[in-house]
């Protein structure tokens, strides 16, 4: 019985194909918007997590702010932190500056960090070649380059390699290491790919008044970042005098960003939902026109013994088929749109397995909701009036 109703409903829709196509288009756009928005939301969330994954979420950043600009740690105070607060496994203070480097006629501009040897392990840097700055070469004119900066400085005939000589101001640095490319982390104040690393002592040569104003710390994965941050504040308060310590936890930042992303996804989904509701109104409109045009057919069906429920089912089936077909095409279009968006923004595409059942379910719900009223109108027609209609 149901299969016959479905076949008949589909045939009716095909017979008025232009009108059906218009109603279908409304649902298609709505469903595509919902699926694309939810999928893009999921992609954005994934991208956020991916950015954190490389650096890890067991990371804190510390910054000293003096009343007039950046303040400065004492190196010894920072290096004493892991002994004072056992939850801090390692800490790497650094000086932030800018660098203009020359190599074989190529110029590279980037950020420059004066670091200790621990920076590589705390920031989880991986070397493509060579090694990182060590405690033994504090005064050597050694430099480590981020992947992007190394590429910027490479001449076609003379790529930057370990051992290459780079000029910076009055100094000539020897490249001792080149890093693997990394995603920029929201926790790092610099783009590691575009950074040149030297020892803190060398930063004193390059800058008139270098400030050891920042540090990155790795804490125990089980530790409560809030408690560690409070302990750090207590520890540094007497040492910093009138400067203040700002702290940021990767876990808290990630939680905040994920919360924002969820809100973002909800907003996008709502926009898509509104489009879908408008599509549903289109289906209702088309179905009401169809009922008005097919009054005599309804009268004939009622006269030969169709129950009002049979008429209701037929028109409801037409609305649901329209919505389901629009929904199915909308899911494909929405996923395609999300794929194109991910490609265009350089993000990693992730397929949402819930998209198809969600799209189908929402479309059927829209079809039933907006098809119900026209179907009831059809079923309530008086057969005598319906047979009289032209």
């Amino acid at each position: 019985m149901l299969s016959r109703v479905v076949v008949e409903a589909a045939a009716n829709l095909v017979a008025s194909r232009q009108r059906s196509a218009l109603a279908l288009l409304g649902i298609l756009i709505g469903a595509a918007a919902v699926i694309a928005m939810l999928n893009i939301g999921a992609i954005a969330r994934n991208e956020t997590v991916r950015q954190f994954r490389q650096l890890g979420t067991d990371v804190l950043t510390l910054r000293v702010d003096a009343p007039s600009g950046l303040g400065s740690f004492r190196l010894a105070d920072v290096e004493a932190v892991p002994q004072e607060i056992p939850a801090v496994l390692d800490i790497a203070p650094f000086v932030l500056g800018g660098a203009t480097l020359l190599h074989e006629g190529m110029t590279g501009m980037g950020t420059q960090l004066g670091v200790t040897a621990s920076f590589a392990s705390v920031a989880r840097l991986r070397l493509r070649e060579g090694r990182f700055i060590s405690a033994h070469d504090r005064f050597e004119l050694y430099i480590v380059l981020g992947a992007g900066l190394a590429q910027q400085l490479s001449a076609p005939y003379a790529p930057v390699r370990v051992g290459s000589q780079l000029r910076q101001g009055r100094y000539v640095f020897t490249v001792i290491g080149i890093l693997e490319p990394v995603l920029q982390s929201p926790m790092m104040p610099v783009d590691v790919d575009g950074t040149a690393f030297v020892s803190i002592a060398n930063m004193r040569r390059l800058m008139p008044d270098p400030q050891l104003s920042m540090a990155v710390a790795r804490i125990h994965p089980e530790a409560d970042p809030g408690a560690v941050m409070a302990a750090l504040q207590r520890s540094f308060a007497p040492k910093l005098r009138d400067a203040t310590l700002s702290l940021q936890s990767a876990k808290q930042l990630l939680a905040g960003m994920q919360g924002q992303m969820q809100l973002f996804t909800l907003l996008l989904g709502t926009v898509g939902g509104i489009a879908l509701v408008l599509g549903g109104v289109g289906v209702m409109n088309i179905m009401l026109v169809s009922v008005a045009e097919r009054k005599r057919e309804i009268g004939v069906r009622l006269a030969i013994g169709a129950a009002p429920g049979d008429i209701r089912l037929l028109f409801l089936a037409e609305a649901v088929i329209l919505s389901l077909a629009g929904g199915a095409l909308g899911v494909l279009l929405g996923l395609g749109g999300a794929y194109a968006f991910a490609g265009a923004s350089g993000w990693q595409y992730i397929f949402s397995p819930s998209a198809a059942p969600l799209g189908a379910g929402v479309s059927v719900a829209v079809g039933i909701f907006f098809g119900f009223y026209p179907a009831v109108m059809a079923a309530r027609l008086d057969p005598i009036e319906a047979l009289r209609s032209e």
Partner: protein
Amino acid sequence: MLELVDITRSFRVGPGTMPILRGVTLRLEAGQLVSIMGGSGSGKSTLMNIIGLLDKPTGGEYRIDGQDVLQAEARALSRLRNRLIGFVFQSFFLLPRLNAWRNVALPLQYRGLPEAEAKRRAIAMLGRVGLADRVEHMPAMLSGGQKQRVAIARALVGEPAVVLADEPTGALDPKVSQEIMALFLALKRELNVLILIITHDPGVAAQCERRLLLAEGTIAEQPPC
């Protein structure tokens, strides 16, 4: 057997009521071909709607094969219409998107018969009305006479107690009208079914074995031709 006893029907018009049927009493047997004639406004359509279970009278009794059909509620009324009544309309009223056999099978499908069985019976009935070679044709591909044959097959396929034909030859030329009347005569004998023809055409009424005249809301028997 169809039995109407003192059927009245009036309609509300403004503050008052307008009587259309003023006490129609009628007893019709299976296997008869009966015509009801009457002028405009005589109540033909109202009587047909009551006999066809599309409308309820204001008063009176109505029984088909001894069953009181006026007590039925909406859903039961649909079932009774499906089992007891077959309709033939002046303008055929075939469903344009269904082919001939699907149009004929429709009453059986609403009865809940499996599609294969409904198709078998529909094709057999199309054979009986002389359209064995037109079963897959869409209504648009059929002539007026062929469309009315499909409509007659649709009315008869469910083996009803009564076939109500409202001006069945009104849209057809005289030759085809004659063929349709001949078909009615053959089928009422063959299927032992009561066929009630509402017409304003004395020529059509003359071919029926009983002729009834509806005037001013009451019915009178006409002498045989």
